[in-house]
């Protein structure tokens, strides 16, 4: 099964039911290593649920999810995260009372091996400090390092959200609507940021802004009513009549 191992994320026949309601039906998705993969679909198609299923936020009713060939469905979110998958949230989900610096530093601690250590001074860990400073620099928030995250502007919080997500150095990064609610200028900045920070990594992104999707993604999957109706390159997706009917059609007119 060399094909399965080369995929960063492999979702096979996953179903998710809440009671009798099937939110996700027979979901199949394959994301190759190093690929930028966008998931699009109309509202309520189950994009965020798909994210939650892959990242361990909720467990699938049946089917399996593999990360770099290892079965991860049924694992807890932190166990999946430790295996190198990191995700952001659609609704900003930071540590509001802690400073920007502390937010990013917390996200660095596990990956640098400090875990639950209560015998080390957190301020005198050079690799943690350097990596935190580097991430802050990357997300352009160095000048806001001492501000509590809850007091940042919305766009800054979204950038911090991305910073926390990539801080652990995960090889698979999943971003849930990173540009939602941003202005054009902010969106352009965020896309450039995402492009730069996920260089050489596998990226899965849910996005409503089609210019972002078609500008960023190597491959696109279209999710409708909890089922992926097609996957392909942006060009293939653009031409696919099923997609036009199910999704783009509504927005194009």
């Amino acid at each position, binding site marked *: 099964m060399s094909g399965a191992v080369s995929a960063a994320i492999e979702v096979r026949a996953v179903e998710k039911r809440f009671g009798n309601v099937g939110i996700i039906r027979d979901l199949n998705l394959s994301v190759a290593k190093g690929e930028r993969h966008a998931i699009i679909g109309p509202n309520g198609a189950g994009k965020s649920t798909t994210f939650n299923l892959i990242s361990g936020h909720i467990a699938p009713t049946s089917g399996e999810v593999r990360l770099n060939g290892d079965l991860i469905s049924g694992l807890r979110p932190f166990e999946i995260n430790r295996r190198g998958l990191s995700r952001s949230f659609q609704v900003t989900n930071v540590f509001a*009372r*802690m400073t920007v610096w502390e937010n990013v530093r917390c*996200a660095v601690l596990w990956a640098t091996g400090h875990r639950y250590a209560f015998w080390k001074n957190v301020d005198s860990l050079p690799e943690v400090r350097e990596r935190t400073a580097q991430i802050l620099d990357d997300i352009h928030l160095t000048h806001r390092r001492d501000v509590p995250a809850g007091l940042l502007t919305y766009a800054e919080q979204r950038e911090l959200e991305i910073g926390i997500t990539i801080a652990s150095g995960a090889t698979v990064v999943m971003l849930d609507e990173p540009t939602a609610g941003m202005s054009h200028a902010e969106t352009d900045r965020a896309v450039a940021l995402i492009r730069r920070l996920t260089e050489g990594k596998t990226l899965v992104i849910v996005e409503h802004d089609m210019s972002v999707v078609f500008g960023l993604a190597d491959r696109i999957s279209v999710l409708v009513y909890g089922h992926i109706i097609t996957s392909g390159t942006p060009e293939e997706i653009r031409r696919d009549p099923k997609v036009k009917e199910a999704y783009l059609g509504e927005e194009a007119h």
Partner: protein
Amino acid sequence: MTTAATSTSKMAAEPAGGLRFYGVWLLGILVLIVLPMIFSSGGSLTSFSLIGIAIVFALSYNILLGQTGLLSFGHAVHYGLGGFAACHMMNAVVSHGWPIPLPFIPLFGGLGGLAFAVIIGWVMTKRAGTVFAMISLGIGELVASSSLILRSVFGGESGITTDRTALPKMLGWSFGPQLQVYYLIAFWLVLSAIAMYALTRTPLGRICNAVRDNPERVQFIGYDPHVVRYIAFCFAGFFAGIAGGLAAINFEIANSAYLGAIQSGLVLFSTFIGGTAFFFGPILGAILVTYLQLGLTNLTTAWQLYFGIIFIGIVMYSPGGIAGLLMMHRPLIRAGTLWTVIPSYLVAVVPTVALACGVILAIETVARFSGGDPINLFGIAFIATSPVTWLTAAILVVGGFFVARLAWRRIAEAWDKAATVARDRGYLA
């Protein structure tokens, strides 16, 4: 209120800030050494000893409430078990002739509190929020009632007594005099406070804050919030046990009152009134609450009512506690705009004090109506059954309230202006 983390990380970075940081600790130690030389009466030594114990206890509680966001209604369980462990240990040392002097006993109290936390904590900390609060309440009641039933361990109603002077001497100290006990408590207070502060500066301590702010997100940066809560709970249990051990040494007894709901409530009071967002908050709270508890019980039978009023006032108007109130002023001091607020404070003092006096007079009138000593307010005696007293109380309350409200509004306006300037100058986010 969120500047605590900021300032500490800056302190570590700037040598000047570091100097000031160590200066504060050294000053604290100095105060502890000098205090009994200035106030040497037996009464003040007893008070200082109790305050020292209360500070260790409140700081341990804040590991849960302020650092990790866990609201416990049963923290006294660890305090009490620490007390019993210390008493049993002291008696064992005496009867077996072990060479363990008294200053090491609080450590065994800590181990007692820790042992129970290790056993019960994993189940308790599975969930935070209401679930944790309810379980802590249940465990608290369970242990408190068990202590009356399991007589061989807890000694029933009368508790377990001990004699601290029977232990081996250390450096010639018998620990009979209260002064020596005070220094023993002060020593453990400093040791525990430094340890608990250092804990907040570790990777675990930082992640505790993250769990407090957003347990869901913590899972997506590699941490199991359950494990974080559990370790924090164990540390809190350990230091509460040390406080209980100190209390056992101080009173030479441990009984069921140590682990009861009243004790758990008091530590919640102290910590919250002092302020949970800053490390020094619980210290202020423990000093104030213990001092009031000792002072008010002599003055009035309604002392618990005053506690309640203070607590409600803090919860409603200053959820950051006393520490939060004080630290609100820091950006203004830095921006140099504090002086614009001070005059409005001074204006507000008179009507606020009048209002407070009116409330006190009214409460005492009700409390002493059916008999009791006359009310002594600033040397003026009021008779509870006299209409003059009622009228004075009514005038003070109503008049004080209306004038005070105007004055408070002025404070708010002055404050807004000063904060705007501070914001413009970049001292306030």
